[in-house]
């Protein structure tokens, strides 16, 4: 059984940024853990989320369904088209996860950063 650990942090940049640091494999058995944790922080008032994928060795389509669901949680009705989300950004995906992000076209919707401080200040 795969387990997914998610640590929640908050950093103040231009806005308060909630950081979800994910560790483990995100597959069909675990993606709901991520989705539920995001839902919990959004219900708690989080408006801008940085998803730190540095500890994720594997992410399949279930992980992208979770990311899709998180963008829907955060997206205001004014956002439309193919513009990138101002509310959800990704940090430090591995090369393998990065390739899947591109194959599924999620790089069109989400900014991806390698540097944590730069990511936080980009919101």
């Amino acid at each position, binding site marked *: *059984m*795969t387990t997914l650990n998610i640590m929640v942090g908050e950093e103040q940049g231009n806005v308060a940024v909630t950081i979800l640091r994910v560790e483990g*494999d995100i*597959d*069909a*058995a675990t993606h709901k853990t991520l989705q539920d944790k995001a839902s919990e922080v959004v219900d708690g008032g989080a408006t801008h989320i940085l998803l730190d994928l540095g500890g994720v060795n*594997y992410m*399949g*389509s*279930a992980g*992208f*369904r979770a990311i*899709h*669901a998180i*963008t*829907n949680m955060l*997206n205001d009705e004014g*956002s*439309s*088209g*193919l513009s990138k*989300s101002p509310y959800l950004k990704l940090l430090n995906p591995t*090369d*393998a996860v990065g*390739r*899947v992000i591109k*194959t*599924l*076209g*999620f790089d*069109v*919707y989400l900014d991806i950063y390698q540097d944590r401080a730069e990511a936080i200040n980009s919101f």
Partner: protein
Amino acid sequence: MNEEKVFGLSVKASLDNLQTIRQYIDRVGERLGVSDEALGDLRLVVDEAVTNVVIHGYGDNEGIVELHMEGDGDAVIIRIRDQAEPFDPGHVNNPQLDTALKDRPFGGMGIFLIKQMTDEAEFLTPAGGGNEIRLVKKGAIQ
């Protein structure tokens, strides 16, 4: 001693076994000399295929999924067999990559990834029942 070229795994079709299956792909991939990039793709496509077997094939029923992985020159061939209801991937639409994310329907990404990240992906219905997915990744073995 003859070098073993075909490797098999038979496990209960369960999402709880996805990690075990990915580890099997890693182990066999290492034995076959598969490159890191190709191994990442194979881990992904097998995970996606087995996820579909568990969720869409067996559904609430219990069953077994069998995997066979072998090297053929520089290619890797993987067969995934189940005894679930016949599955037609023609019913699955590709994800709409040119649509705003909030307007994109969920689903369809698994089959899309399988087709994108392999050179051949055949969805077969063997005479004995069930399904067989045959995946070929060329240039995978260094």
